[in-house]
């Protein structure tokens, strides 16, 4: 009898997360929990200025403090050719400032001492003399004639432009716009945000002079890429570098890049020959590490009177900070921005993009999304709402008639992506039904009598997740496949290792479920290990919702290799030929007499004790998986809000989420991902942004200014599902980790804009803080751009 898949914790089981056992008991093992013998502590001195020439650095007072072991400055790094490092976007980034500082929070010096208190005291004793330079805090200033040159270190760089780039069909778009009945326009700013994991970045570098080996415990989502990067930057042989990423307290994209702190701690360990721990503080994390978004979006949609979309044009102006250190693996300068409108059947599209340097922190990361997909989907759904309004057409109907239809797959999007599956109309219907769309107008009228404005906002989206196939995606030339290694012990228990790295996604739980599904080994009998480059097989790490699409597929494929070998062993044990052996979950049996069978555990034991003649012993294997395409989940998020026009305060009444991420491995974990994503979406829409004042001071450098939503104000979410399996993924799964963060914000903003219908306001840029909503209602005008920071009336 085949096993009951749910009982053994296979696919579809809402199995409890095994990792939670240690987390809720306080037994997690984070970088800061690791203590090595004779370990020293490092603290970084950061620049208070956003743009200034460094006239002098006097570290003598720091050296005088007892317990100080080393003081490092840019000059000392330069002497070892380490003052600059390459970025993931083929630019260079200062590890420590030498000539000048280019953003507030930039690394200027570091102290290594016996304990972190001494290191901090010594940092305060360092005297740096700065000469202020003009500060640039947005792309408009950056591109203005005569603007101060931020990257004067780069040969041939004469202005603050990072790139000009385009994709799509310019002439085709021009033609579509010429033939349109109506051209709808919108201008948006997606403000700078920060992934802000609760655990900040940190590392312990341990260079052993005797063995020549460097071990680095590090908060990284991608340990193998870090090993490659360290080999490049520190010029150490790859086999002498071991990167260990222990438990991570969240990542959200923030822990993909290589940060100066890591590099400095490595050098410090090499110089002191002692382990050196660096744990960034919250402010350091917020002001210096990889941010998200910060893009100005302008767009136009050409439509016919009957609502058919004819073409779209987009222009983006992005703010990359002082160094172009975007952590993204595509060949496209503005990431996957051109995934916009992938769920709509739109014949032609054109995108132009301009990137600029500013005096802000570098390192744009894909904050819980495939790179720039969040901005793309936000733009798309705000544009669609605006066009529906301009047409005077129902917003749901406008979407429905333009969706790619269920039987039109595979579908080549106007920008050239290939989408492969989905039931877009069905998802929308489920959502409209759940929110009671038909009766909403009645509620709206009732609320008006109470002096309140009600609004409903729809956001639908499909996003390319799971980078990626090796033809189009790489990091520093390394192709983006993933691997898994499965070792079945003689008792039928197993250990699985992958090159991915969970930061809360629950890989230890779900990977075992995939093996259980493929082999019938109970999930509880499988231990999952990740994060140590000395033991884990090669992988590109966990971000961009790529783990299930890529590493998860490798887990299925390696399980199938094991099953193929076990089948040979089963035939041997059953004394029949392999063709006569059938498989059901957990068991091989003889086709002609199903009662005669052996379990997968029997086969495992035989692999060590009774293998067929000539067969290599053991039951283990590995698999590398290069996905044929990205996966394309779809979602429809609908929310209703109530606005108090007297104060601009708005409350969420209801949020309905319909997600189609293909086959769900662990439904509970999938739902957790959606709720977490919607919470972040709500935060971005309502309260969250990092902005800078005119002097380049970061406003958002701590949790009093950079607001994370709490359980208190986060609305409840009602979740629904539709399942369209991914046609090319071995278990039919699509990415889900990021859909709600990507698609969610537009549903909230669209809802508030819907509530403001009739006031003449067409757009308020995020975050929709009460004062901005109030001002819009009062003036009847749009509120654009980063919320202005003025200190005086």
């Amino acid at each position: 009898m085949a096993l009951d898949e749910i009982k053994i914790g296979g696919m579809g089981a809402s199995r409890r997360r095994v990792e939670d056992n240690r987390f809720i008991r306080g037994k997690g093992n984070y970088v800061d929990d690791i203590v090595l013998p004779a370990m020293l502590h490092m603290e970084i001195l950061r620049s208070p200025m956003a743009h200034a020439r460094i006239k002098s650095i006097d570290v003598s007072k720091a050296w005088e403090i007892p317990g100080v072991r080393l003081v490092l400055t840019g000059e000392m790094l330069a002497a070892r050719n380490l003052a600059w490092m390459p970025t993931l976007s083929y630019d260079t980034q200062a590890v420590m400032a030498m000539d000048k500082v280019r953003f507030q929070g930039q690394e200027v010096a570091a102290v290594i001492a016996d304990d972190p208190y001494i290191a901090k005291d010594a940092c305060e004793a360092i005297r740096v003399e700065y000469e202020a330079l003009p500060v640039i805090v947005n792309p408009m200033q950056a591109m203005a004639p005569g603007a101060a040159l931020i990257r004067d270190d780069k040969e041939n760089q004469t202005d603050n432009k990072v790139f000009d780039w385009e994709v799509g069909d310019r002439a085709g778009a021009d033609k579509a716009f010429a033939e349109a009945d109506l051209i709808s326009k919108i201008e948006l700013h997606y403000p700078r945000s920060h992934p802000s994991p609760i655990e900040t970045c940190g590392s312990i570098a341990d260079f052993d002079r005797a063995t020549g080996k460097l071990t680095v415990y590090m908060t990284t989502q991608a340990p193998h890429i870090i090993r490659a990067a360290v080999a490049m930057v520190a010029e150490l042989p790859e086999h002498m570098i071991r990167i260990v990423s222990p438990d991570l307290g969240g990542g959200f994209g923030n822990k993909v890049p290589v940060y100066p702190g890591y590099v400095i701690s490595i050098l410090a360990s090499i110089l002191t020959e002692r382990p050196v721990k660096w744990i960034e503080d919250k402010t350091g994390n917020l002001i210096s590490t990889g941010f998200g978004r910060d893009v100005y979006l302008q767009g136009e949609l050409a439509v016919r009177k009957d609502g058919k979309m004819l073409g779209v044009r987009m222009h983006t102006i992005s703010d990359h900070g002082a160094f172009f250190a975007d952590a993204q693996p595509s060949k496209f300068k503005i990431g996957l921005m051109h995934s916009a409108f992938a769920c709509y059947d739109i014949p032609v599209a054109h995108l132009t993009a301009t990137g600029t340097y500013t005096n802000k922190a570098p390192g744009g990361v894909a904050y819980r999304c495939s790179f720039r997909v969040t901005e793309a989907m936000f733009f798309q759904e705000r544009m669609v709402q605006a066009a529906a309004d301009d047409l005077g057409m129902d917003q749901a109907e406008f979407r429905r008639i333009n969706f790619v239809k269920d039987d039109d797959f595979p579908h080549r999007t106007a920008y050239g992506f290939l989408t492969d599956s989905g039931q877009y109309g069905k998802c929308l219907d489920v959502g409209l039904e759940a929110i009671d769309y038909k009766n909403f107008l009645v509620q709206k009228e009732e609320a008006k009598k109470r002096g309140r404005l009600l609004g409903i906002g729809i956001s639908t989206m499909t996003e390319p997740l799971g980078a990626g196939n090796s033809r189009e995606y790489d990091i520093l030339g390394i192709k983006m496949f993933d691997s898994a290694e499965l070792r079945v012990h003689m008792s039928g228990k197993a250990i699985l290792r992958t090159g991915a790295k969970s930061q809360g996604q629950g890989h230890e739980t779900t990977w075992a479920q995939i093996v259980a599904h493929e082999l019938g080994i109970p999930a509880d009998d499988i231990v999952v290990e990740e994060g140590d480059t000395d033991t884990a097989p090669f992988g590109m790490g966990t971000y961009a919702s790529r783990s299930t699409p890529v590493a998860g597929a490798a887990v299925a494929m390696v399980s199938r290799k094991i099953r193929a070998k076990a089948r040979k062993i089963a035939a041997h044990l059953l004394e029949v030929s392999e063709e006569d052996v059938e498989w059901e979950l957990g068991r091989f049996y003889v086709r002609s007499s199903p009662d005669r069978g052996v379990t997968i555990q029997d086969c495992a034991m035989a692999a060590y004790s009774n293998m067929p003649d000539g067969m290599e012993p053991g039951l283990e294997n590995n698999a590398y998986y290069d996905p044929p395409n990205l996966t394309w989940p779809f979602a429809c998020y609908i929310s209703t809000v109530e606005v108090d026009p007297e104060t601009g305060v708005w409350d969420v009444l209801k949020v309905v989420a319909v997600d189609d991420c293909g086959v769900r491995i662990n439904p509970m974990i999938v739902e957790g991902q959606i709720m977490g994503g919607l919470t972040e979406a709500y935060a971005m829409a309502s309260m969250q942004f990092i902005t800078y004042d005119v002097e380049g001071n970061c406003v958002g450098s701590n949790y009093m200014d950079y607001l994370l939503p709490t359980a208190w104000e986060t609305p409840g979410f009602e979740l629904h599902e539709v399942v369209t399996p991914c046609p090319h993924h071995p278990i039919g799964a699509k990415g889900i980790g990021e859909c709600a963060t990507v698609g969610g914000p537009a549903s909230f903003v669209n809802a508030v804009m819907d509530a403001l219908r009739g006031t003449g306001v067409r757009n308020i840029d995020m975050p929709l803080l009460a004062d901005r909503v109030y001002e819009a209602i009062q003036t009847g005008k749009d509120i654009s751009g980063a919320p202005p920071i003025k200190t005086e009336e």
Partner: protein
Amino acid sequence: MYPPRFNYESPKSLAEAISLLTAGGGEAKVLAGGQSLVPMLKLRFASPEMLVDINNIPGLNYVRRDADGSIHIGALCRHEDLEKSEVIAEHQPTIAAAAPLVADPIVRTRGTFVGSVCHADPQGDWSATMIALDGHIVAQGPNGKRNIPARDFVTGPFQNALAFDEIAIEAVIPAPKGDVHGGYLKLERRVGDFATAAVAVALETSGGKVIRAGIALTGVGGRTINANVAADSLVGSALTIESITRAGELAAAAAEPRSDHRGSASYKRHIVSTFLTRILNNISESTVKAA
């Protein structure tokens, strides 16, 4: 967190605490709930030589109502104690309304009412309630006790009228002479955020007429604003649409807000008048209902 070096003392009596402060000569600081002082240490904005932790001094954790109707809040009474207090729920609507709006539920379990008033943060909620209620602080030093009226207690942003060797041992809300009404409305971007603007109102009525009024504003100036002109305008007559509107305008005029990331100055002024009118309308409705 890596604060600068300091000595830590944990006295068991007020007398011992006061002598430690005296010996500290201005370089010692009282540690109550630590919810403002500890973040300042972390950020190295404060670097006292000594912390005098008063948490182990018995007899300071109380909130009680005396026979004359005055309310007494001891130096170790936490925000949460006030939020859950039956005495407050029954007799003191201004404090009852503010308690659940101070900080977040976690901070409220540690932070103290008196500590908050001592901290004199222009964005602190309790100072406004104290001024609206015309309360006073009881200070104890080497030479005994003295009363400091709340309206004189805050001398500037993060500055109070205590001498370096004095401890605020109690906050007192005087006995009311009429029926007690009050409210507190606060606009915050998120739970645990300081006020964008907040309004504290304390009224006493007799025979339908206002016989005492106190209004104070949080977050709209370099210190808690005593909107006494607005308050005085209400005294002597019943609440009417006109008097409420007028008080709203006067309070907005008394505010001295600055534009910042919490909102523009004009928005904050608008919130002051809107919130004041909302509180007064509520009171007016409930007094009409009662009458």
